[in-house]
């Protein structure tokens, strides 16, 4: 049992490696990892939950490890070139089995990427990523419009 409220860095690092090895290695794209890790976070408390990781370590260690990986995925996505972001967004859309038009409309209106950023992210990086998402959505929409009409993917 951990007496300290803040977990030891070594434990967190071990948990982070465990998470990368067992779970995140199957999620290749940073965008998918960002969305997956954001979904592990309780919107009301900001605390990350992962039962498997918590059972192997502790709740606190698991939370810190998830937060670390979330920040890393965010950093990767912020510095990725625009063409890669467009490809990642398109691939993510395909993986959701949603029609392109429906997906682009929903993402354009709801801007779900705004709630996917880690806490304490510096405002400029967050704004830059939001701006890139906006452009990437416009590119995909434009490409969709220019395609000949056919059955939805």
């Amino acid at each position: 049992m951990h007496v300290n409220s803040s977990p030891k860095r070594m434990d967190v690092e071990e948990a982070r490696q465990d998470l990368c090895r067992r779970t995140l290695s199957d999620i290749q794209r940073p965008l998918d990892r960002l969305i997956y890790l954001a979904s592990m976070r309780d919107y009301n408390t900001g605390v990350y939950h992962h039962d498997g990781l918590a059972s192997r370590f502790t709740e606190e260690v698991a939370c810190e490890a998830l937060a670390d990986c979330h920040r890393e995925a965010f950093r990767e996505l912020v510095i990725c070139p625009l063409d890669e972001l467009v490809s990642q967004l398109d691939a993510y859309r395909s993986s959701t089995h949603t029609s392109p038009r429906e997906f682009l409309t929903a993402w354009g209106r709801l801007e779900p990427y705004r709630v996917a950023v880690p806490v304490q992210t510096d405002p400029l990086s967050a704004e830059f990523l939001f701006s890139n998402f906006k452009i990437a959505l416009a590119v995909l929409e434009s490409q969709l419009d220019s395609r000949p009409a056919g059955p939805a993917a």
Partner: protein
Amino acid sequence: MIQLLFFLLIGAALLSSLLFLVRRGGPRPEGDSRVLMDARRALDALQGGLLPHELVRRIFARDDLDYMVALALPKPVRDLFILERRKIALLWIAQVRTQVSSLKRFHVGAARSYAQLGLRTELELACDFAALLVACQALRFAVYVGGPYVAPRMVGATAAAAGKICAISEQSLAFLNPVQLKPLASGSLHS
């Protein structure tokens, strides 16, 4: 009478110097700690969020523009791209300027009390601050008028100058860093 006037003048001069020193001198714990905290935050914001090379390069990267041009997208999409990049570029410049101004306030007001900077370093720093703030204004104007890709060298020079100021400020604020204690040698308890 002339002697009395002379001594009165000396007395008045001494008193006014004393008042000046009292007003300027002793560190005020509340004000000083706030300036220190602001400076630390500004330094963290610059080093952690605004100046990392990869982020600056990505914001002003021309390959994104080349990608947009190569796609031959409709004009509204290309306009959106330029508009968004210009917005982010201006935000970057404004934030660098704000944080550098915060560091300048620290150096003007409190750094002398805490940091052992030589006169030469202080003068150089004053020139660097002035040059950087002017460069930020010039860059802001250039980006506003010509767009985000108009002055890549100015961007590089601004980031480098801000990095230099950060390095000097880091030294001035080093006393805030936690002391790293060396582990005790195994025999030290018995010595």
